């Protein structure tokens, strides 16, 4: 199998952009990734495009050049971008192509996501009676976790405050204003114990990466970043996941745990080796739980870690250095590639004001979403 390198990353800022289409944002993200790689679109041999709202992300070719390449579209919930990345990498790993692009783009309506619950194999009446809410699932999950592992409301607020602070340092973020822990705690309760400022919001944006066979990467860049592994997993029997009307009593680990273990094993890297971390912070509780599910701490240890500032940019476990979903919002198709964009900048030492000190060499990204899907990617210098 071929090794895979990332030779270019590009992003269209996340936020709200009026009439601008997701396709336009996707094309801009690709142009920016190509410029970063010093490549032209006509050199790209294939692409995968991810989106929730756009049926045909491949329509970006109309804005980039109609070169006739194979362009495959994917949607896989909150793990859409991880899926586009994994499939692009696989096509290179298996020797089918040398150079490809993974792109994600979205443009969501305001407010919480909604859809037909039947598409999530939930009962048809699940939404009618008010159960079809991802936010309610996250409230229930972190509430039990806090009860079992002694996590305080203050720690929930610390996570959100950190991510807003990091967002201030990120010119591409949606929310670029620091919000105090006090204001976070006193904002409207949405789903106990989670308040308004502890949640991310759906928004708009795009991100792209250019991947190539590792052995040719230095033709294009002097600082390739290697995609050591990308892993996807779905839920197993016993896990309580988003949009489940029931759960088995028999316990099972969350899909993230399985994806994470498989990723560490495939990369030959352990959590102690990771220098920069990106996890799915749909809400601040999710960041806390995902820290443990990805092996970065024991259950309950987050209380102390957050109080010590360990997850800050200058801490020993920097988490969501670009502000995560809380500061960037979640254009579903693009979110995971935003994580990769940030890790690549950090590993190249190009993250500017939010640069993690000490020449970070290993980056880790995790996505999680309905109906119980997780994606993990590990990148290294």
């Amino acid at each position, binding site marked *: 199998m071929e090794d895979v390198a990332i030779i270019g990353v590009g992003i269209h800022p996340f936020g709200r952009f009026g009439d601008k289409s997701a396709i336009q944002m996707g094309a801009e993200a690709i142009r920016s990734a190509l410029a970063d790689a010093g490549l032209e679109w006509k050199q790209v041999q294939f692409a995968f495009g991810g989106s929730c709202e756009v049926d045909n992300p491949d329509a970006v070719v109309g804005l980039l050049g109609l070169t006739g390449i194979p362009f495959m579209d994917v949607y896989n919930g909150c793990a859409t971008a991880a899926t586009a990345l994994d499939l692009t990498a696989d096509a290179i790993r298996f020797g089918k192509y040398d150079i490809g692009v993974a792109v994600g783009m979205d443009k969501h309506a305001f*407010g*919480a996501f*909604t859809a*037909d*619950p039947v598409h999530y194999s939930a*009962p*048809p*009446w699940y*939404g*009618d*009676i*008010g*159960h*079809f*809410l991802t936010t*309610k699932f996250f*409230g*229930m*999950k972190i*509430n*039990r976790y806090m*009860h079992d592992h002694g996590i305080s409301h203050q720690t929930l607020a610390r996570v959100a405050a950190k991510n807003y602070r990091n967002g201030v340092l990120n010119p591409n973020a949606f929310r670029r204003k620091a919000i105090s822990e006090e204001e976070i705690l006193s904002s*409207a*309760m*949405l*789903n*106990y*114990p*989670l308040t308004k400022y502890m949640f991310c919001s759906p928004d708009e944006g795009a991100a792209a990466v250019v991947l190539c066979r590792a052995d040719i990467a230095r033709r294009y860049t002097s600082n390739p970043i290697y995609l050591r592994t990308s892993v996807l997993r779905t839920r197993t*029997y016993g896990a*309580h996941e988003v949009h*489940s*009307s*029931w*759960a*088995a*009593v*028999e316990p099972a680990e969350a899909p993230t745990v399985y994806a994470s273990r498989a990723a560490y094993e495939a990369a030959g890297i352990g959590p102690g080796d990771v220098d920069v971390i990106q996890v799915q912070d749909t809400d601040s509780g999710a960041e806390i739980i995902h820290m443990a599910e990805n092996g970065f701490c024991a259950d309950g240890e987050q209380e102390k870690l957050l109080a010590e500032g360990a997850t800050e940019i200058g801490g020993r476990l920097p988490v969501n250095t670009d502000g995560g979903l809380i500061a960037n919002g979640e254009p579903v198709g693009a979110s995971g590639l935003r994580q990769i964009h940030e890790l690549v900048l950090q590993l190249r030492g190009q993250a500017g004001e939010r640069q993690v000190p000490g020449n970070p060499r290993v980056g880790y990204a995790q996505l999680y979403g309905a109906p119980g899907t997780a994606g993990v990617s590990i990148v290294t210098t």
Partner: protein
Amino acid sequence: MAQVPFAPDVFTWPAEKPQLIGARCASCAAVTFPAQDSCPRCGKLEMEQLLLPREGTLWTWTTQDFLPKEPYASGETPQTFKPFGMGLVQLGDDVRVEGRLTVSDPKQIRFGMKLELVIYPFRTDGDGTQVMSYAFAPAEEGN
């Protein structure tokens, strides 16, 4: 006044002691709610109807403090919306079921509290028909 369940085959109705209608796999004993034709654990098509216990304990919970978007069909508006509690309630040894709680104040809710199934009017239609749904209410301790 006519009372109709919001969907068929979710709970026994009318009934003096209503129960949720689930299913159990004849092969591996996995239990689901609502009933489904295939087993989520072993994949076999041997599911049999199972009436779930009426009483259970609260495994975890949250509150719903904002009006859900469509397809929410309570007829409420942002002005009339009443926040509600949501729980994952363990019924018997094999299954936990999501359901609304009749209490919504976090001070009235605690992990492990005993709950019982109630059927309540979820919405009243223009012709006066009451559309009934299920919820869990605090049960008297010691029952």
